[in-house]
């Protein structure tokens, strides 16, 4: 039997990797993917909890998270495209018109 904590630790590590990606990468698309990574890490822990609790809720939430992730991807990439049309860059550190 795999202990629950293994899953949770895995989830935590992946989450942290996602955070690292979000904070460190320049390319917005990869930043976005880091976000997806974070969501997936949550999904792992939710599924694990769900399993170990013998409850359905976690899995249902995973389902919704995936749904929302899809919607987010659509909107996020649309925003990215709209932005790219006006300012052809997707470098995080080149986007600072608004500041102060």
């Amino acid at each position, binding site marked *: 039997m795999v202990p629950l904590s293994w899953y949770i630790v895995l989830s935590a590590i992946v989450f942290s990797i996602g955070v690292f990606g979000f*904070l460190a990468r320049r390319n917005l698309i990869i930043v976005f993917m880091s976000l997806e990574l974070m969501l997936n890490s949550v999904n792992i822990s939710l599924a694990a909890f769900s399993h170990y609790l013998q409850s359905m809720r976690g899995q249902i939430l995973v389902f919704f998270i995936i749904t929302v992730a899809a*919607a987010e991807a659509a909107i996020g990439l649309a925003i990215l495209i709209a932005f790219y049309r006006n300012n052809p860059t997707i470098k995080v550190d080149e986007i600072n018109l608004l500041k102060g």
Partner: protein
Amino acid sequence: MTIQQAFFSYFAGAIVALSLLVVTRKNPVHSVLWMLLLFVHIASLYLFLNAEFLAAIQIIIYAGAILVLFLFVIMLLNLRKEETEKRFQGQWPFGLAIGVVLAVFVVLIVGKIGVLPELGQYSVEAVKSEGHIMTVGKVLYTEFLLPFEIASVILLVAIVGAVVLAKRSLE
């Protein structure tokens, strides 16, 4: 170490490694491809956890829809010069530090997870007897009707939003 633990260890190791690859590859297309592999591994983990339906939609939606969308956009934006430039930004050491510290903190805290509340009605046997998809469907359409409906609205908004924002010209 039981066999399950060994398998888990492999998958966990792979997931971590793949995650790192995703966030460190210079070429976004490579990242996407590593991510595809990552999703397959995660789906496998779901199977471990007796969540067949999740494994399925992980592949179908995440890999099939979302990642494809990413690929589309990468292609659309035609990011050639990307490969010649720095992949990390100036603050990456901070990002790394935060990532590491966060991991340490969270692992320190959650690693001790032990006590779980009383078990629910959906034991592995119970789910197996009815079939996972059946169980999920039942729950989804009764207990979780409201969230389900909300999710539908969210998708609608996503469509509308994507159209409004990304359409070349409205007038």
